[in-house]
């Protein structure tokens, strides 16, 4: 059973790293491997995947290598190459018991204060949170609901007035109902892809190896 103890320790080690929520933090690292950028925030300094530049219309790349819905209320939120358009968004209900402050993915801002340490919400807050575009039936499985919203969408190339826009597109839904926010056409090795970090991949490989070894040992026993 020694291997299970080792594995348990490893899991605890990975799970516990970066759990603090400090306001004054060390600076970002001076150097990062190719494809990653130095960042520092409440979780401290580290290297993260670059924000992808190939997200579909209605989404924007975020540091960490994924795409996030680019919500807006007016064109000014969208930059020069995008416009704010009404779209049907897929919403799910979420109950929050704690807040770290505002949702930094959304320029449509909630009532929270800054992004300080976690504060208990009493009573808890239940709200509708947009997580995908409603353009196909499979993009918004129940109990999620399609409701109106606004997204920054790409301007049609050659359209100077901004009246013509590329329709927002949904991103694929995984078996567990969550959205795969990795940019399309990206394998696990490309700069803009998967949220999985190197420690995560190493842990997965270790677990697979441990299980394989256990099976092999069981099969080898007389």
């Amino acid at each position: 059973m020694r291997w299970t103890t080792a594995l348990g320790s490893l899991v605890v080690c990975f799970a516990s790293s970066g759990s603090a929520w400090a306001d004054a933090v060390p600076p970002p690292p001076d150097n990062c491997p190719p494809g990653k950028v130095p960042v520092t925030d409440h979780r401290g300094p580290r290297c993260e995947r670059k924000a992808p530049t190939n997200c579909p219309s209605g989404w924007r790349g975020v540091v960490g290598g994924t795409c996030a819905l680019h919500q807006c209320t007016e064109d000014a939120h969208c930059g020069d190459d995008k416009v704010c358009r009404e779209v049907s968004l897929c919403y799910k209900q979420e109950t929050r018991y704690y807040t770290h402050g505002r949702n930094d993915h959304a320029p449509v801002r909630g009532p929270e204060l800054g992004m300080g340490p976690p504060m208990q919400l009493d009573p808890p807050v239940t709200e509708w949170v947009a997580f995908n575009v409603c353009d196909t039936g499979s993009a918004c499985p129940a109990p999620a609901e399609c409701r109106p919203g606004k997204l920054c969408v790409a301007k049609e190339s050659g359209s100077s007035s901004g009246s013509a826009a590329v329709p927002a597109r949904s991103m694929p839904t995984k078996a567990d109902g969550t959205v795969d926010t990795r940019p399309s056409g990206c394998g696990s090795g490309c700069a803009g892809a998967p949220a999985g970090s190197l420690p995560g991949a190493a842990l997965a490989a270790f677990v697979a190896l441990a299980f394989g070894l256990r099976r092999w040992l069981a099969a080898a026993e007389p």
Partner: protein
Amino acid sequence: MRPAWSVLLLSGCAHAQAPRECPAGYMTDARASTELRDALRADPEGARLLEATAGRATFCFARGGPGVLTEGALLLDDAPADPRVVARAAHLLHHLARGERVTSGDPHSADERAASELEARLFARACQRSASPPAYCNQVPPP
């Protein structure tokens, strides 16, 4: 000689956190910095914090900036007129003024509680001063 030593020590502490350049991905936006300083100066507690940290704070802006302090650089969201950003900046200046380079992240610690209460007061007053207060101003009860 004791007072002279104290002054020397205090001035040394005051310069312990020299302002740094903004990290990659953040901008030192002069207009946004002025807007934020003006908003802080309009508040009695904000004005005191600006004075206490004069020459030691650099405001760095990026969309969705996390609202943290690192070696004298305040990494903020690029919305300097937003009451939440003003209040958050005051929270971070509070840590800077006290020479706190790395905080615990424990919301129950005395320093964090004081900073969060200050942030809530600043936020409420910034909302009151705003000519067209954002909708979320009405959703937060005054402290």
